[in-house]
C-alpha cells in the first residue's frame, strides 16, 4: 500500500492541475481579504440592512478570526476545487488509457483506488492548510497595520476550536470529493466526476428551495441533502456574523437536523460513494482508453 501512496502522490505532485487548484484557492483567499479590507476603508456600514460598522468588518479580518474565515471559504468555494481535483485524479486515468497500465502494475485494484483516494484527501487537506496559511499571512498584515501584533487570544481552547473547525470543514468536503471521485470511476471520465460533484454543489440548494414550496412529502426531503447538512456543520465554526459565509441558496437551516444527524448523513453519503467506486472498479472490465 505504501508504494501505491507514493506513486499517487508523485503523479499528482507533478501535475499542473494540482498546483493550479492550490493557486486558485490561495488566490481566492487573498482576493476576498483584499476586497473586504478595501470595503472596510471605504464605507461606514456593511451587510444586510447596514447591520455592521466598517470597524466591525475590519476587526473581523484580524488574525483571531482568520482560521475560521479561511475554512469557511474552503468549505464553500473551495469545494469546487476539491471536486475538480478528485474527478481529475480518477477520470484522467481513463482518458489517458493509463488505467490499464496501473491495473497491471499495482498490487490489487482496491488497493490502487484506495491509495488514490487517500492521496486526494491528503492534498485537499494540504490545500486547506495552504488557504489557512494565506489567510493568516494576510490577516497578520491587516492586524499589524491597524493595531499591531497581539497574540493574547492564543490559548488552549482557542487552538482546540481552530482544530475542530478544520476537522468540520474537511468532513463537509468529504462527500463531495467522494461523489466526484466515484462518478469519475463509474463514468470513466473526468467530466462525469466534475459534472456530478459541481452539479450537486450548485443544484442541491436550488432543488431544495423548490421542494420546500411543494408541501409534503417534498418539503422534508432537503433535510437529507448534502448541502443542507454541510451548512449545519459549518455553522458550528466560530465565525463573526459580519463575515460572509458564501453559502449557496441561503437556506434557513434552523432546526432542520441536529449536528449529530448532519454528521451521520454526510458520513453515509461518503461511504456510499466510495463503496460504489470501489465496487465498480473492482468488478468491471478494464478496456477503454
Amino acid at each position: 500500500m505504501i508504494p501505491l501512496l507514493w506513486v499517487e502522490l508523485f503523479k499528482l505532485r507533478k501535475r499542473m492541475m494540482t498546483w493550479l487548484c492550490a493557486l486558485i484557492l490561495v488566490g481566492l483567499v487573498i482576493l476576498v481579504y483584499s476586497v473586504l479590507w478595501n470595503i472596510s476603508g471605504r464605507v461606514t456600514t456593511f451587510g444586510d440592512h447596514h447591520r455592521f460598522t466598517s470597524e466591525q468588518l475590519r476587526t473581523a479580518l484580524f488574525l483571531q478570526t482568520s482560521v475560521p474565515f479561511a475554512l469557511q471559504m474552503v468549505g464553500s468555494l473551495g469545494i469546487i476545487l476539491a471536486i475538480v481535483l478528485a474527478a481529475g485524479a480518477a477520470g484522467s486515468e481513463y482518458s489517458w488509457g493509463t488505467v490499464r497500465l496501473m491495473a497491471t502494475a499495482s498490487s490489487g485494484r482496491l488497493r490502487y483506488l484506495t491509495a488514490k483516494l487517500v492521496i486526494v484527501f491528503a492534498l485537499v487537506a494540504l490545500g486547506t492548510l495552504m488557504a489557512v496559511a494565506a489567510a493568516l499571512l494576510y490577516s497578520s498584515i491587516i492586524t499589524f497595520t491597524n493595531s499591531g501584533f497581539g497574540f493574547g487570544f492564543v490559548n488552549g481552547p482557542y487552538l482546540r476550536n481552530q482544530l475542530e473547525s478544520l476537522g468540520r470543514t474537511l468532513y463537509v468536503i468529504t462527500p463531495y470529493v467522494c461523489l466526484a471521485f466515484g462518478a469519475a470511476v463509474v463514468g470513466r471520465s473526468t467530466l462525469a466526476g466534475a459534472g456530478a460533484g459541481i452539479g450537486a454543489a450548485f443544484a442541491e440548494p436550488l432543488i431544495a428551495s423548490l421542494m420546500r414550496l411543494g408541501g409534503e412529502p417534498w418539503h422534508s426531503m432537503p433535510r437529507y441533502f448534502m448541502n443542507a447538512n454541510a451548512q449545519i456543520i459549518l455553522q458550528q465554526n466560530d465565525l463573526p456574523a459580519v463575515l460572509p459565509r458564501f453559502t449557496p441558496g441561503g437556506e434557513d437551516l434552523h432546526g432542520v437536523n441536529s449536528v449529530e444527524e448532519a454528521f451521520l448523513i454526510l458520513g453515509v453519503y461518503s461511504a456510499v460513494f466510495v463503496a460504489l467506486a470501489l465496487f465498480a472498479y473492482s468488478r468491471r472490465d478494464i478496456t477503454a482508453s
Partner: protein
Amino acid sequence: MGVKKTANTSVVLRTEDLSKRYGRITAVDSLNIRLLQGEVFGFLGPNGSGKSTTVGMMLGLIRPTNGRVLAFGSDMTLHPWPALKRIGSVVETPAFYPYLSGYDNLKAIGMMLGDIPAHRIDEMLELVGLGSRARDPYKSYSLGMKQRLGIASTLLRDPELIILDEPTNGLDPAGTREIRELIPRLAREGRTVFLCSHLLHEVQEVSDRVGIVRKGHLVAEGSVDELLGRGRYLRLRSEDNGALANVMTAIPWVSGVEMLDGFVRAAVPPDRAAELNRVLTGHGIYLSELAPWEADLESIFLQLTGEVSER
C-alpha cells in the same frame, strides 16, 4: 525462423476453455492455448477476432464469461497479482501520463512495482534509444518513441512473460528491425513472448509457434513449419492437372491432394518424391514441375480466416 527453444518447456500461461461474451456477441469462444517458457508465440487474427479481448483476459483486465487463464499457476481472475509481477505488457497503443517525462513515467511504474533500482530505468531508456529524450514530456513523443517507451516499461520489471500487442506499430524501419531482433533475444534469455501482430511476415520471422484466431475461435495452432507445411507438400504440374490429381488421389501414401491455380498440391513424404514421379510416369503422366511447396503465413492466414488481410 526465430529462436530455438531451450530444453525447459514448462507452461507459463494456459487458457482453459476461455470465453468472453458481450451480450449476444461472442468475442472469444472456448480458447485453449499454452505458452511455453522461452518461446515466441505469434497470435494472429483479423480485426474483431478477439485478440485484444484475449490479451485483456490474460492480464486480468477482463473477466472471462467462462473458462480461466492460469499464469505461473495463478488464476488471473481471482489472484492476478503474483503473476502480474512476472508479466510485462504493452496492450494496444502504449498509454502513459502525458505530463510526465519518459523517465518519470518509468519511475512511477518502478515505484508501484517496488525494488526497481533507478539505474535500471536509465538502462531501459538507453536500450530502446530514448536516453537523450528521457527528460522530455511524454506528450512530445512521436508514436514510435511512445512505442519504445512501452517496450522499456515492459522490460523494466525483468518479466518472464512479455505480451506485446503490435510492438512495431509506428516505428520506422530501423526501429522495426531492432524490435524484431530484440524479440528472439528476449526468448533466448528464457523469457516467453506473446506477440500479437497484424504483420504476418513479422510473426513468421520471429515466432516459434503461431495461433490463428477467427471470430473468437482458435482455427490453427502449431509451429510455423507445421502451419506452412514445410517439407510435407509438393507442388506438381503436368499438361493435364485433372488426370494428375486423380492418379495421385489413388496413391495410398499421398494425401491432401488439392487442385490449385495451375498446379496440384499434395502431401507426400519427402523421401518418396522420386517414387511418385515413377508412378505417375507409369500412368502416362509426365510432370513439367515437381518442387517443394513454399507457402507463406499470409496465404495460410487468409485460407484459414477466409478474410482479407489487415495489412
